[in-house]
Structure formats: structure tokens, C-alpha cells
């Protein structure tokens, strides 16, 4: 079995060797588009014997129309083809692999990546002239040392190539080549058809501008629906891999087990609960730091501060929001952590003379730093929300003889409460999904503990650690990351939807 890891595969341009022919198709389509523009524009102008005023639309619109007819269907088909072709090929090729090979402690995906690798290697060999295309297609695993052959052209394989894999790789190459060839033909035919149709339609009375505008509108709509596509992509990509995970690992352990102990020899305990505990603990500490400081800053800035103080302090606080999280992560690991160790963990040499903390990474470290990061987030959201409270309510309160703080505490804050709750929920969602600070500052030990000076771990840190380095997408230890990601997504999505709903309702109340 070839031990193919992601980092090895990544070194190769992979299926993009095909990109050459795809690039050719795209360029051909673009050339046709330009030709269409000139031809159709000319034809439209000629159809009214050169008097452009008699055309329905400006001459250029006929050109745009032609461009649209040529390029849009052709390029869309290209994109669609490239998405679907790998799927079809994989489904065909996989039948060539005997089932017992897959069962040998591996998975379909793993075997497929071997197949692709060999196929790519053969491509490289042919491209470098080490062998002819026919020779590559005629290779037999029991007659040639494929591994040595590929090593000569710079493609290193982990082990010898099994016959079915080589056969599948050859099939893969043939199908890919045939598929790409067919695509080139179909796409170019489509482009030419579009050109002919545009030529035929573009006479003086043709309403080219309206057609172009309708086409542009469709493009605009497609751009807008990319948001839906992204969400669907996120959900589907994580859902499929999560389902794979739950096929290998009992869901009861994931949701209700009490231990997180991945073991790459198998038989791991993979429960989300200890990670969830760490995530929540850190988030709560972060909110305990960020909410009072952020809220009081917002109150002071919007209620008390003179405009000069406001114009100076507000942008400064917002710098904190613009600093990348990796900076906060480093700050946690190298500054705040050691400082806390100095206070709590140095025994008699420390500030408090206690020895409660053993390392710089701890729940408190990550929580404090995340709190600092969230201060401007809470404060600018609350600032907006407090400013949305109508001045008439403040006047009413002042008119009754309330002091400013009484007005804020008893009138403004209660009126702004839903909005502020929304802001805090958004901040909580941020805290739960934050990655770099916890990766560097929280530690890697999954446990249930109430001691904030201990290292704990979170959902996001485990996603990073399970998906970086050498990963095997057939093992539950890797796939669990997708289940974690899905849980994280659902959790933050719920918080966001709720928070956005509350904030929106709140704004409507005062509009």
C-alpha cells in the first residue's frame, strides 16, 4: 500500500496538468467572444446601412450581446464539467479496484489518491519524454517496476504499485484525457453556436440592450447567490465527512462520552464534551473581561465623553479590533501566560508566593487575551445600540430630575437591553469560534476542570490539530474534525441568527 499523505500529494500540481487543455479552451472561448463582438456589431450596423441611429440599441450593445451569447454558456459549461468530471471518473475507476484491497484497513478515498498519484506520475513521465503515451498506457505492473520508473522522473512513491492500482491509474488517465477532449469539443461547439445565433438575431430591430441587460441581471443574481452556495458548501462538505465519521465512530460517544483521547492506532475516545467545556469556560472568562469594559466604555463614549475625547478614544479602541488574532495568540503565549505564571505559579519566587499554575498556557491566559480582543467588538456594537435609543427618552428622564447615571441605568440601558443582549451573543459566537488565541494560549489537554489556571483545550484547537500535519481521511481521528466543525458551525449559526434577529427587532422598534 502506498502511504500517501496530504503533504506529499500537495507537492504536485496534480490534475492541473490537465489545466493546460482547459486553459486552451478558455482562451479559445475568449478569442471567439472578441471575434463575436466585432462581427455582430458590424453586422448590426451593416443591417441599417451604416446609420447607427436606426438601430434599436447602441451598436456596442450588439457586440456585448454577441459576447454574452458566446462566453457565458461556454464558460459555465466548462466550470460545470470540471466539477462533475472528477466525480464520474472516480465512480468508474473505483470499480476496477477489488473490494478486498479497500477492506485492507484502508478506504476508497485513500486508494483513489494512490490512483491519482500514479496517474499524475505517468503524466509527468510522458511530459518529460521519459516514455511515450502509448508506452504509459501499455504498462503492466508485473513486468515493469513502476515505482522505479516514476522515481526517475522525480515522482516518489511510498511503495510498489499494485496491479489494480496501475490499471485504475491508466483508466483514469484515459478517461481524463477523453473527458477533457470531449469537453473542449462541446464547449467550443457551444461557443460557435452562440456566435451564429447572435449573428442571426442581430438586425436593426433587435432589442440588443434589453437582452444584454437581462443577461447582466442574471450574472448579478448569480453573484448574489454565491452566498447561498457558500453556506450550502459549508454544510454539505462538513455533513458528508461527519457522516463518514459517524459510520466509524458511535455518535453516542461523540455527543455523550466524557473523554477526548485520540489514538492513531484506533480505539479512540472522541467526545466533544470536554472540548465544549474548555470552549465555554474560556468564552465565559473572555466575556467577563470584555462585557464590563466594553459596555462601560460604550456608555462613557456615547453618554459622557465630549466630542474631542470621543474622536480620540474611539478609533484607538478600534485598533484593538483590527489587530490580527495571531498577534493576540502570540501575546497570550509569550506575554500574558508568563506574566500569570509569575503571579500564580512561581512558588516563593512569584508575586503571590503560590504554586498553582504550571505552564503559560491556561484557560485564564486565553480567556483574558480573548477578552481584550472582544472589548472593541462589544463597545462599538453597544455604542451603536445606545445611540439608537431616542434622545426623547433621555430628555424625559432628565426632565424628571434624574441624574445622568440614573437615566443611563434606569432608562437607556433597559431600553437598549435587547440590542445589548444581541451584541453579547455575537461576541459569544466570536469567542466560541476564535482559533488562534486558543491554539497558542489555551493548551492541548482535554479535561473537565474548574481551575482556570490549568491548560484546557477547545473545539477549534482540536480541529486544527486533527487536520494539520499528516492526515488520513479514512480514520475517525481525522474525520472527527468535520463533526467538530459542524457542531461549531451549528452552535455559532444559532447564536448569530438569534443575535441578528434580536438586534433587528430592536432597531425596528426605534425606527
Amino acid at each position: 500500500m502506498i502511504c500517501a499523505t496530504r503533504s506529499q500529494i500537495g507537492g504536485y500540481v496534480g490534475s492541473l496538468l490537465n489545466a493546460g487543455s482547459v486553459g486552451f479552451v478558455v482562451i479559445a472561448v475568449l478569442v471567439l467572444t472578441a471575434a463575436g463582438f466585432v462581427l455582430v456589431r458590424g453586422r448590426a450596423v451593416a443591417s441599417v446601412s451604416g446609420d447607427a441611429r436606426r438601430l434599436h440599441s447602441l451598436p456596442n450593445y450588439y457586440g456585448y450581446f454577441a459576447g454574452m451569447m458566446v462566453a457565458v454558456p461556454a464558460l459555465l459549461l466548462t466550470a460545470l464539467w470540471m466539477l462533475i468530471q472528477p466525480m464520474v471518473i472516480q465512480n468508474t475507476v473505483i470499480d476496477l479496484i477489488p473490494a478486498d484491497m479497500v477492506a485492507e484497513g484502508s478506504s476508497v478515498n485513500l486508494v483513489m489518491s494512490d490512483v491519482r498519484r500514479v496517474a499524475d506520475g505517468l503524466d509527468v513521465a510522458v511530459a518529460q519524454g521519459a516514455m511515450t503515451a502509448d508506452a504509459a498506457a501499455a504498462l503492466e505492473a508485473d513486468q515493469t517496476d513502476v515505482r522505479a520508473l516514476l522515481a526517475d522522473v522525480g515522482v516518489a512513491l511510498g511503495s510498489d504499485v499494485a496491479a489494480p492500482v496501475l490499471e485504475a491509474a491508466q483508466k483514469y488517465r484515459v478517461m481524463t484525457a477523453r473527458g477533457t477532449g470531449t469537453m473542449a469539443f462541446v464547449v467550443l461547439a457551444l461557443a460557435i453556436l452562440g456566435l451564429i445565433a447572435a449573428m442571426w438575431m442581430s438586425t436593426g430591430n433587435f432589442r440588443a440592450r434589453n437582452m444584454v441587460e437581462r443577461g447582466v441581471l442574471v450574472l448579478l443574481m448569480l453573484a448574489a447567490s454565491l452566498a447561498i452556495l457558500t453556506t450550502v458548501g459549508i454544510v454539505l462538505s462538513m455533513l458528508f465527512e461527519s457522516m463518514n465519521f459517524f459510520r466509524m465512530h458511535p455518535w453516542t460517544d461523540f455527543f455523550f462520552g466524557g473523554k477526548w483521547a485520540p489514538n492513531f492506532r484506533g480505539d479512540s475516545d472522541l467526545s466533544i464534551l470536554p472540548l465544549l467545556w474548555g470552549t465555554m469556560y474560556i468564552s465565559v472568562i473572555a466575556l467577563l473581561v470584555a462585557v464590563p469594559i466594553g459596555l462601560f466604555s460604550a456608555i462613557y463614549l456615547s453618554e459622557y465623553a465630549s466630542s474631542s475625547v470621543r474622536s480620540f478614544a474611539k478609533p484607538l479602541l478600534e485598533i484593538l479590533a483590527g489587530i490580527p488574532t495571531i498577534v493576540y495568540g502570540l501575546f497570550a503565549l509569550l506575554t500574558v501566560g508568563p506574566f500569570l505564571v509569575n503571579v500564580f505559579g512561581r512558588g516563593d519566587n512569584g508575586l503571590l508566593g503560590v504554586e498553582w499554575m504550571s505552564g503559560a498556557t491556561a484557560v485564564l491566559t486565553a480567556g483574558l487575551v480573548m477578552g481584550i480582543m472582544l472589548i472593541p467588538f462589544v463597545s462599538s456594537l453597544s455604542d451603536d445600540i445606545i445611540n439608537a435609543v431616542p434622545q426623547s427618552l433621555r430628555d424625559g428622564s432628565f426632565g424628571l430630575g434624574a441624574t445622568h447615571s440614573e437615566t443611563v441605568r434606569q432608562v437607556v440601558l433597559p431600553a437598549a437591553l435587547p440590542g445589548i443582549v444581541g451584541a453579547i451573543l455575537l461576541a459569544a459566537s466570536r469567542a466560541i469560534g476564535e482559533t488562534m488565541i486558543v491554539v497558542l494560549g489555551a493548551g492541548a489537554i482535554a479535561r473537565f476542570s474548574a481551575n482556570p489556571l490549568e491548560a484546557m483545550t477547545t473545539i477549534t484547537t482540536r480541529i486544527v490539530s486533527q487536520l494539520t500535519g499528516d492526515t488520513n481521511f479514512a480514520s475517525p481521528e481525522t474525520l472527527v474534525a468535520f463533526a467538530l466543525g459542524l457542531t461549531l458551525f451549528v452552535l455559532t449559526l444559532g447564536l448569530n441568527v438569534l443575535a441578528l434577529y434580536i438586534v433587528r427587532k430592536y432597531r425596528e422598534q426605534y425606527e
Partner: protein
Amino acid sequence: MKDAVSWENDVTTNTVKIAARDVQVHYGDTHAIKDVNVDIEDKTVTAFIGPSGCGKSTFLRCINRMNDTIDVCRVTGDIRIDGEDIYDRKVDPVQLRAKVGMVFQKPNPFPKSIYDNVAYGPRIHGLARNKADLDDIVERALKRGAIWDEVKDRLQAPGTGLSGGQQQRLCIARAVATEPEVLLMDEPCSALDPIATAQVEELIDELRQNYSVVIVTHSMQQAARVSQRTAFFHLGNLVEFGDTDKIFTAPEDPRTESYITGRIG
């Protein structure tokens, strides 16, 4: 300008409650109120009339120092309530506003229950010794606001759920609950329909028994209906001040006459 103010023919014999002398107000570079002198009597409704932007609301807001909340606003001159200079450094605007209540143009009930709206003032000023006391104060204020019968069964309902006219009467009740001596009303009916306006006007007339009421209004008819004394403001000046009947029947200043006959405004 002082000459223009008419001081004669007091119909009432009430004592002077508020005395303003040489009051000037600046908003940044704008001179909003120029040299205003006026004596406002106790247990009387005094109306401030004049075209938009003439300074009548600004002057009203000087009387309980609401202008303090606006950064660029500067007030000079002398305003005395019961002989005490309210712009004295020793005066706390918080205490002043408890004594001089205010009702605003747009009804502005707090997003709290009807009960809590009215109880707000008494609570912050510590007027009630206990819950029963507070209940009494709230009930008395709502009755004086002429809204008790409409809300007595739903005191815990939100104040924002009332109709516009009810909200404004609630705001009046809220202002009355702190037991002020002066009530300032800034166009209290401008956001209300005619029926609600009539109710509020009736209420203002009743309030006269106990308070000195100052009302800013756009409507000359309203001024004529509810007030005993009227002051006409124009471009930051107090043009004429006197008995309402006299202002509306025999104004002395030509500007006043132009305004009430509708030629300026």
C-alpha cells in the same frame, strides 16, 4: 426691547413664581435668545407663542436647565424661581428639575410599565416611604393626569402600548408625580389628534389650580383657550407679554399683530 414688553393690567393677583432678567442664550455662534425679561406667575397658565425658530422652546428649556445637556449651549442672565437664582453654582439641576417638571412635544413614555413610568420620579427622588405610599403617589398622579380610569386595570402593561393622547397624559402624570411646583410643556399637543388635544387642554386647565404652568404652543387658538397670560417671541426677542385676552384682541406691537393675523409665522 424692554419697552416692548407690556407689564400692565394683571388680571390675577398671584405672586410671581419665575422671574427672568436679561436672559441670553447662545448656540455656538447663534444668538438664540436676546435679552428676555419676563415674570411668570404662580397658579397661572402662561403661553409662549411665536413662529418656528423664534426661541420660545429654547427659553422654556432654560427654566429647568434642560439646555445644560447640550454642549454648545450657553445661557447668561438671571432666572429666579421663588427668588432663588437657578443658575447659581450651588444649584443642582437635579433638584431644580424635581421642582420644575417638563412635558415634551412628542409623548416619550419609557419602555416600562405604566406603573413604573409614573413611579420613576418618586423613586429616584425618594418620595415614597414604602410600597403602599408609592402606590398612592402613582394613583394620585394618574388621577391628576386624567388617565387613571383608562389604565387602572392594566398598570403593569407597557406605557408604550397606549394611544398617543393617553401616552401624553401619562407623561403629564409622570411629571406631576414628582410633585413639582412648575410644569413646563413644550408643544404638548402637537403630536396628538384633535380629541386627544381637547382632553389634554382640559387637563392643563385643571392643573392650573396647583401649579404654575408654562406652555409653548404653535397654535394661537390653543394659547387663547388654555392660557391666562401670553408671551409672543419673534427672532429670539420677547416682543410682547401680557394678558392673553389683550394680546389676541389689542396687541400693542405691530409684529404681534402681524403674527396673530397670520401675516408672519
